[in-house]
């Protein structure tokens, strides 16, 4: 059994539906960053579009684009991760309820508030009756969705899957999360996030759709060799899991070209990565991505997307490297490592097919 990433599409604080960020990244200017919306007209008929919340439009668009790029009309499964779901509609309904004393509330906002609205809207648009699921486990939501998809492939239940990560950020939720240490108090740029560790990071807004298949085709970006997960591990457990992952895939530690991690500039978050890097991946180049895409519950979807893009190009540009003054060529194997609050951890091994 092999699992390949065929294609991916994103809407984020980078230019939407392109890989322009790979050569010419847009550097976020502030701490609260909204996504750049594409023109949805070419993806969703206006009458339907008007009835959809922003996150649903984004999900339908990135899904359709990933399917088009990957040459697939109908996936066997649609599996999403979302930390907060359609929070804009949730707030709309909650505010109406609290302001109007539980009377005269908008049913559409409620209908579009549940997390599974995203996967089911994609299914509805595609008329896809296959496996459909949604994970909501904070910064491990996308990782859970990917793990589920991988298991479905392993068990021979599916041949293709859309695996997605979607989260939006609203001004109110941004302020609330700010009260519990999610964001930097001062305006933080890439250098600040890298050099001066503090409390919090910069916010992003994430929509990534990734098409997986058990068959190679001309579009294939890379292969996912395996994904393993741990919860509240000690250092030796991580080392053991990494060793087993590599041994099973027949890849030596010396074959790993770089490790893609969720460094964000938040001291507590980063110290976990730094400790694991020094313990398990000594001297390996470190790729980061949250300085470009921001922090969000589904940010780890960008880790997978960035890694797949690197492997398709077999090149790591300088701006993705945490500590280096030049890019890296001939990239063959990458580890994507993510953790959330040092609770759930995921380690994924990706390999170039070229």
């Amino acid at each position, binding site marked *: 059994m092999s699992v390949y990433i065929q294609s991916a599409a994103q809407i984020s604080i980078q230019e939407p539906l392109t890989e322009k960020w790979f050569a010419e990244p847009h550097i976020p200017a502030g701490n609260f960053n909204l996504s750049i919306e594409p023109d949805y007209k070419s993806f969703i008929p206006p009458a339907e579009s008007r009835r959809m919340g922003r996150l649903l439009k984004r999900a339908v668009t990135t899904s359709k684009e990933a399917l088009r790029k990957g040459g697939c009309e109908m996936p066997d499964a649609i599996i999403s991760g979302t930390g907060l779901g359609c929070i804009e509609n949730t707030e709309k*309904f909650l505010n109406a309820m609290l302001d109007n004393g539980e009377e005269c509330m908008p049913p559409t906002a409620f209908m579009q508030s549940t997390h599974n609205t995203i996967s089911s809207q994609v*299914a509805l648009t595609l008329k896809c009756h296959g496996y459909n699921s949604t994970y909501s*486990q904070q910064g491990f939501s996308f990782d859970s969705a990917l793990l589920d998809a991988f298991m479905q492939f392993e068990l021979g239940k599916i041949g293709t899957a859309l695996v997605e990560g979607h989260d939006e950020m609203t001004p109110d939720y941004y302020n609330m999360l700010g009260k519990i240490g999610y964001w930097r108090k001062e305006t933080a740029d890439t250098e600040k996030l890298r050099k001066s560790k503090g409390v919090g990071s910069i916010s992003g807004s994430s929509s990534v759709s990734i098409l997986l298949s058990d068959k190679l085709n001309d579009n294939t970006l890379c292969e996912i060799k395996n994904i393993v997960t741990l919860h509240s591990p000690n250092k030796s457990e991580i080392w053991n899991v990494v060793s087993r992952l590599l041994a099973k895939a027949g890849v030596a530690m010396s074959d790993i070209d770089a490790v893609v991690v969720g460094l964000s500039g938040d001291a507590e978050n980063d110290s976990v990565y730094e400790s694991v890097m020094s313990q398990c991946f000594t001297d390996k180049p470190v790729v980061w991505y949250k300085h470009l895409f921001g922090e969000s519950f589904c940010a780890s979807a960008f880790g997978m997307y960035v890694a797949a893009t690197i492997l398709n190009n077999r090149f790591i540009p300088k701006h993705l490297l945490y500590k280096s003054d030049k890019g890296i060529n001939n990239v063959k194997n990458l580890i994507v490592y993510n953790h959330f609050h040092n609770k759930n951890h995921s380690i994924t091994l990706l390999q170039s097919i070229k």
Partner: protein
Amino acid sequence: MAEIVITGLGIISALGSGIEVTVGRLLSEKSAVEKIKHLQTVHCDLPAGEVPYSDTQLREMLNIAPDYNITRTSLMGQVALKEAMSQAKLSDKQNFTVALVAGNTVGGMEKSEQYYHHFLNDEEYKEYIGLHDCGACTEMIAQGTPFNFDLVTTISTACSSAANSVFFGADMLKTGRADIVVAGGTECLSKFHLNGFNTLMILDSEVCKPFDKNRRGLNLGEGAAFLVMETAESARRRNVVPICKLSGYANRCDAFHQTASSPEGEGAFLAMEGALADAALQPADIDYINAHGTGTPNNDESEGHAMMRVFGDRIPPVSSTKAFTGHTTSASGAIEAVISILSLTRGFIPANLNFSEKIDSLNFMPVTKTMQGVNLRHVLTNSFGFGGNDSSCIFSKIEQQ
């Protein structure tokens, strides 16, 4: 493929806490859906299946200090988790890999809606901001045991969340990614949910009447349930007695409408067919169906049509237990899985309360009087969610050797 067995059950609902209380209440044929008492809402005339314990009482049951920040969703989850793990003799982790998978939809909303203006305007109750999301609720449930789980995750597919958690758990066992999985779901009543369902005009102002011609809607409920799942080999190794086996399951999407089910019940049909195929069973092998049966005009007719497509004119005994518990949304898949397993192992079929007249377009009537002393080999339970997230699974008796 490894045989998946169930070795522990835990449940809390409007019927009370624990499997013995639940069985007793089901056999008594007495609904626990009553006018709202605990939830502070202007719609307190609406009936609902509230868990008969206040937060304070739940904290006392769990020995949790009054000043420890925790949501009602997580409190109920901890009660059910403890019971399930105790039955499965899971007190010591030893060298097993154990995952916790829980279904959940509105997370800590019941606290967020009370403290929302504080969240926005001042620093009071800000600890609850981080407990709002679904994943945080599951982490809080995990923290209620001294156990260090190897994976903690949350599935949010609305009213099929808990069923899909069981499926994810089974797949973890089959792929060797865990030795034991504790899977289920939890949801507490909130004004958000109550008003949401109310704006969709699908709440009955009286106790619901699943599968009745004159049904008018559903009643919301709350609760939690968990199942301890492992391979038969693991149960043997740990010397625990399997309760039953999970023989098949399937998740399909209706892909028809964001909240309504298709008239022909396509998603439900595919889910039931998929579960039968996964279990390598024929429709005639199913001895009881614990239906999703919410009592809404749309669900019951659509689910009924799907059953007729799968079972033809030989529909097995069917009942919905929603009139006992209310619709416990994200927890319902696990609550009804526990009820189905209790039916299977103790040989009874719970009554479908409040039924008087058959739906014209359906060829069957639900079981209206509790059937006791019946020999059930395979039971099928349905859980359908908004967005057409339809899931069915089959539990089977373990043949004595």
